[in-house]
């Protein structure tokens, strides 16, 4: 397969997110929404379950978004979005895009069943997981997205998390959905392109996994959230890639930096020893090799 040519994407000026939203300084999830809506336009409705974004979007009677928002119960994003899609279709509106916008807890854990059900039915929706790798809104408790080595308030002290992060993209790919991709707030043009692509690919389930650092929970200064997101890609901790039809892989980036560069600037990993970091490097290398096998020659840069 030929690699897609590298293009410069024009990211529009206007925003569908108002200033004065309730995100913390440096919130990766707020940056993710800003770019997502730039790409998706205003002809979309958002389903937001319990999550940081349930707060960032504003309390009654205010909203920080210029598109309709249906706040939903924690476990229900996939199912609620399916119901909204069905109703719009029955009303003859197949144009409006239905977007579920959930955190990692609402996607990897409590909303996992409803998500699996929705994508197995190949619902005509876009499901976005903005991933900050723990339950940040409730005070940094571990989720199944929390990576190996992390201290959270429920994996504290020497009880830091000793199991891997769930690989959600591979789980979605296994459902053979039309489009699944990872994206990062540090690569806005790549993220913009993926949201546009997903928004335009109507007729089936699309999933975007956005890496969204949380300065509060990751114990980093707020001005470093984009830098940390970039390091995650550059160290292959969070590779940027796309999976079409569950089998056609495209790797968008190649990282060459040691994982230590990513780990040592974050307070949540401060306790790790050299051996621990070596072990994490091995896991990252293993994942990189596995992904390389799947992508074969289809590698290109963002």
């Amino acid at each position, binding site marked *: 397969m030929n690699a897609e040519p590298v293009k410069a994407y024009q990211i529009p000026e206007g925003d569908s997110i108002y200033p004065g939203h309730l995100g913390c300084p440096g919130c990766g999830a707020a940056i993710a929404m800003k770019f997502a809506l730039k790409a998706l336009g*205003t*002809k*979309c*409705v958002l*389903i937001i379950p319990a999550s940081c974004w*349930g*707060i960032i*979007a*504003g*309390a*009654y*009677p205010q*909203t920080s*978004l*210029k*598109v*309709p*928002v*249906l*706040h*939903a*119960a924690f*476990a*229900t994003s*996939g*199912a*609620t*979005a*399916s*119901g*909204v*899609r*069905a*109703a*719009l*279709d*029955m*009303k003859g509106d197949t144009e*409006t895009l239905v977007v579920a916008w959930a955190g990692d807890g609402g996607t990897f854990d409590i909303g996992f*069943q*409803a998500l*699996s*059900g929705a994508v*197995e*039915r190949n619902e005509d929706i876009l499901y976005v997981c903005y991933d900050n790798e723990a339950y940040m809104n409730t005070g940094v408790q571990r989720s199944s997205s929390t990576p190996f080595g992390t201290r959270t308030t429920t994996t504290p002290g020497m009880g830091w998390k000793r199991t891997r992060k769930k690989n959600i993209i591979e789980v979605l790919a296994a459902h053979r959905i039309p489009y699944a991709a990872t994206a990062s707030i540090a690569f806005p043009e790549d993220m913009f392109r993926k949201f546009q692509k997903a928004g335009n690919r109507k007729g089936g389930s699309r999933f975007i996994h956005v890496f969204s650092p949380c300065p509060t929970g990751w114990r980093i200064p707020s001005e470093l959230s984009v830098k940390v997101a970039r390091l995650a890609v550059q160290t292959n901790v969070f590779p940027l890639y796309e999976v079409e039809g569950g089998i056609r892989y495209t790797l968008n980036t190649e990282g060459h930096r040691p994982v230590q560069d990513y780990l040592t600037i974050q307070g949540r990993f401060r306790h790790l020893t050299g051996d621990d970091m070596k072990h994490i490097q091995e896991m990252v290398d293993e994942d990189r090799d596995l992904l390389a096998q799947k992508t074969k020659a289809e590698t290109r840069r963002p």
Partner: protein
Amino acid sequence: MRQVMEGSHAVSEAVRLARVQVVSAYPITPQTHIVEALSEFCAEGAMNARFICVESEHSAMAAVIGACTAGVRAFTATSSHGLALMHELLHWASAARLPIVMAEVNRALGPGWNIWMDQTDSLAQRDTGWIQLYCEDGQEVLDTTLQAFRLAENVHLPVMVVLDAFFLSHTHEPVNLPSQDEVDRFLPPFLPRITLDVENPYALNQMSPPNVYMEMRHNIQAAMEQVPGRFDLVDKEFSSIFGRSYGSVETVCCDDANTVLVVSGTAAGTCRHVISQLRLRGEKVGMLKIKMFRPFPADRVRSVLGNVEKVAVVDRNFSFGASGIFAQELRAALCALDQRPQIFGYIAGLGGRDVTTETFEEIYLRTRQSDRPESESIWVGLSSKEREP
């Protein structure tokens, strides 16, 4: 058109006639016949609707919440464990003020596994803000389902149409099936108050701080208080088109009765027969059938039972640590009266055990022969074999 149909299919036919546009459901015995028929209607084009086969009841309710919010008439059906799994979203549907209609087939909760008739599943959801309407026979199931949409859309609250497992869901009876024209005259298209609209964007169900939350809850109660009156109007209009009406409660031979049996669901049919037999023997006995459990029609109940000597409530349910649930409600409704009847709470027919004419005769005789109830709850027909010492 009069035809023989199963209680379950009386629900399905009503949902078809109501022009529901989105159905979402997850299978559980004994609800399955309802949704199987609806799937067939959707597949064959008898209904212009989308059927979403979800992976759990929790998702079924979430999907109809999404659909109703997006502005279409939506329906689901469940039973027992399925209803229990939905619990979180029952609160969600009512607080979002969505006029969802759900058929709920009364079935026991496990363990031990039991698929048969028991009311504890629906009654355990009494505080979720849903209107609950209990049905006696197939015709009432069909009619109540149609009325439920009209009522729900009038007061902006969801309605649960409740029918007994097997005794009603799987029993075939002659049912008058209305024409589409008649139903269209009774039930106009659904017009949502507010919906998801990209031209007019709103945020719905968002964070609501203490300065507004309490008022929102008060509004739900204000709507609930409207329900008995609104239901009467709906029932009256239904009667003018279809010639049948039900009332939130129904009385049989209560005017001169010194003893009234209080029942709900299919047991009312058996009780009617017993009342007529006892009347032939000169007994001054009547029956109060409670159709509407939420909101509880306390005023009606007080006016029927205020001057009665003894009331025997037959509960096919139980609130552990308290008593039968209809009995609780009745005691609460009558306690404000200066002069009130002796209330006998009987527990019968749990987990599908038959409630027969003999059961009602025994309950009546025990009530007549006692000056006061021997205990708060009198369990009828218990065998000593399975009881813990």
